């Protein structure tokens, strides 16, 4: 497909004006982040003094790293997002396959019950879910953070829409060859849905890396706390207002996602698009 000229593409002065306005807004949009980078990499006395040749330092990062068990928090968050994603992929794949290819009794009711979660989100049901977790005796554990999110209506819906586009003939052909339903799922459907899995994976990982309220409620020890909660405990604690150190800690917690985003910008943007369009 060759690109056809857009008759409404701005030209001349208009193009300059539009580029300028868009650039200005972009500058405004990265300003908070740029400010945090400035504060984190300079000694505290330059936090609000913008001198071009201010000395660079990594001391703020060292102090933040030493002041709180960030290594443990990183590990916890890593375990958390991996656990959630792995369980989500298995459960959502199975459920989506049922909805896409089985004309079973009660499927409409079941689908409506799944979609109900899009409105009644786990984020809102914090009081009851906390009681459930304490009855199960798993308060302050990583599984307690993960459990409410594992059966994801969004994931089931997304994969169902994708599986429905797989030609029925491929499915039939595999069955004629003697494949069991699960083999068909693994050999035909899953490989064809790979881009959607990547998209869903990126959305899920960034959501749970950043999730805060529920982990804050169910955890109260270093052993279970994810990064976001750890950062909050750190920055609201007896740290005072040493902004340079807090900015360093803030950048540290966002760094993996931010670096991933900068490196795989296209995939990120396309994944969020794919996940939203269906």
């Amino acid at each position, binding site marked *: 497909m060759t690109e*056809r000229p857009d*008759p*409404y*593409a701005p030209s001349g002065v208009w*193009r300059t004006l*539009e*580029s300028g306005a*868009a*650039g200005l*807004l*972009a*500058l405004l*949009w*990265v300003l*908070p*982040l740029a*400010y*945090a980078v400035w504060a984190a990499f300079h000694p505290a006395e330059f936090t*609000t003094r913008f001198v071009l040749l201010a000395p660079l330092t990594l001391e703020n990062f060292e102090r933040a790293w030493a002041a709180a068990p960030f290594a443990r928090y990183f590990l916890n968050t890593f375990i958390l997002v991996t656990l959630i994603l792995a369980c989500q992929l298995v*459960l959502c794949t*199975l*459920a989506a396959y*049922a909805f896409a290819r*089985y*004309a*079973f*009794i*009660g*499927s409409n009711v*079941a689908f409506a*019950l*799944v979609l*109900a979660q899009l*409105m*009644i*989100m*786990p984020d*809102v*049901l*914090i*009081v*009851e*879910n906390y009681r*459930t977790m304490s009855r199960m005796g798993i308060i302050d554990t990583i599984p307690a953070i993960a459990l409410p999110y594992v*059966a994801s209506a969004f994931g*089931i819906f997304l994969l169902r829409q994708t599986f429905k586009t797989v030609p029925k003939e491929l499915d039939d052909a595999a069955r004629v060859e003697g494949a069991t*339903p699960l083999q068909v799922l693994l050999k035909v459907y899953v490989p064809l849905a790979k881009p959607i899995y990547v998209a869903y994976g990126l959305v899920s990982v*960034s959501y749970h*890396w*950043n999730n*805060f*309220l529920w982990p804050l409620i169910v955890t109260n020890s270093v052993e279970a706390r994810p*990064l*976001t909660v750890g950062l909050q405990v750190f920055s*609201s604690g007896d740290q005072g207002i040493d*902004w340079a150190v*807090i900015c360093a800690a803030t950048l540290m917690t966002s760094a993996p996602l931010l670096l991933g985003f900068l490196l795989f*910008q296209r995939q990120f943007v396309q994944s969020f*698009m794919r996940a939203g*369009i269906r």
Partner: protein
Amino acid sequence: MTSRLTATIHGWLLLLPAMALLALFTHWPAVATFIDSFYSTPRPRRPARFIGLDNYATIAADPVFWRSLWNNLIFAAGTIPISIALAIVMALWVNDRIAGRTAIRMAYFTPTVLPMIAVANIWLFFYTPQYGLLEQVTGALGFSSHNWLGSQDTALAAVTVVAIWKEAGFFMIFYLAALQSISPSLAEAAALEGASRWTFFRRVQFPLLMPTTLFVLVNAVINAFRMVDHIIVMTRGGPDNATTLLLYYIYQVGFNFWDTTYAASLTTVLLALLALAAFIQYGVLERRIHYR
């Protein structure tokens, strides 16, 4: 007949793990929230008892509840239209072949991948009296010092700005995808008819973006009632409940005051609001979009 039976057994078996977890952590809690709202909170030596609508009577007479509801409506009225309008403008700009569009698109989208809790810390610093960047700028321009988060008048607006900043780039992505799927021949036809760019946007692009707008609107409404991370970091609902949102109030009642059944009643109100919003969006708006 037997094949339908087999399909049903297989279907439900495949569904079983997901359904069990949904029942345990979505359906049952929703029902239990509703039931609990009719009971008193159990205390040591005073077990829970049925109190009918007492909790709801308390809500009706609770000034903090009304304040948080009002705050939340203002927060929604601020974040939803502004972030959607900004998202459309951003998408139109990035869709045109302007200079540095890749970098600009990246700048708009970056807040989406950052944890709200982390960026709220940065914004907190931004707003800090005397020391923060905002103060330095307004100070250099000769304005008097102002405590943005500490003042009743500006605290809610200050946290609303953070929410808009966080969301607009995320919504832009969906508009960008929709704009790119509009056939270029429409623009050619409109140009032949001599339509101005504004007319082309208003009569062609904007109507074609309506399904995207509905999708984004649903997300924006849900987010307006779900976003509380930045409140916890920046203001803790203060000053004097000026920034208390509904979910934050539920969190406070449930986990600071440990009044669980009152928190359950508040949750029921929030769920009813979300249901109402969903009804309006799907029942009313969607019909208008399709039949226009």
